[in-house]
């Protein structure tokens, strides 16, 4: 399977703390994306990092990418209770006629107020 792996599977922190999630993948990629999924809801796109980028920021989110190790991390700073959700990394390959996303296994983040 080309599916990525994420760790930890679950993470519980206190409000105000930082949360770090890691993603590893298996094949070469064009970009890597992070999505958020609130319980029982659809996925919301958070941030995209291209294979020639090493770090990207968006608000309280910081994403790093290490293509030599085939890994990425998502840092959420100053977490809030509203950040409680599952977070998925997804890799995108341009091979084939249509771009397809391959999702990782996800990290369930619980932020305690």
């Amino acid at each position: 399977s080309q599916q990525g792996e994420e760790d930890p599977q679950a993470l519980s922190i206190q409000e105000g703390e930082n949360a770090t999630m890691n993603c590893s993948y298996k094949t070469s990629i064009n970009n890597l994306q992070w999505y958020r999924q609130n319980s029982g809801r659809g996925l919301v796109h958070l941030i995209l990092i291209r294979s020639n980028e090493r770090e990207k920021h968006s608000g309280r989110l910081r994403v790093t990418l290490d293509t030599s190790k085939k890994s990425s991390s998502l840092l959420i700073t100053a977490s809030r209770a509203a950040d409680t959700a599952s977070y998925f990394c997804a890799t995108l390959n341009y091979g084939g006629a249509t771009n397809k996303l391959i999702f990782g296994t996800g990290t369930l983040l619980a932020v305690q107020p």
Partner: protein
Amino acid sequence: DAMVIQNPRYQVTQFGKPVTLSCSQTLNHNVMYWYQQKSSQAPKLLFHYYDKDFNNEADTPDNFQSRRPNTSFCFLDIRSPGLGDAAMYLCATSSSRAADTQYFGPGTRLTVL
């Protein structure tokens, strides 16, 4: 607001009774995707449409079919649902085959009794 809409949000069916899930979009996107997400797992792509061109993933069971009568609507038909088909079904769109980002609907949770 432009969006991806899925109906119903919750669907209960009986073992073997055909069921249809609906997805509509106001984004005027060319590509529509259907994913299956089982509990605590990553979304798994079932198939996608580029305009009216249907593309099945190799490991998608024959029990799953899809129709796209126009740009706005796409349907997922499960001909004979089994207990193993209970899952969240996510519809997504992208503006083109080369697009990086997908936009997800809220999902339909299917229960099979």
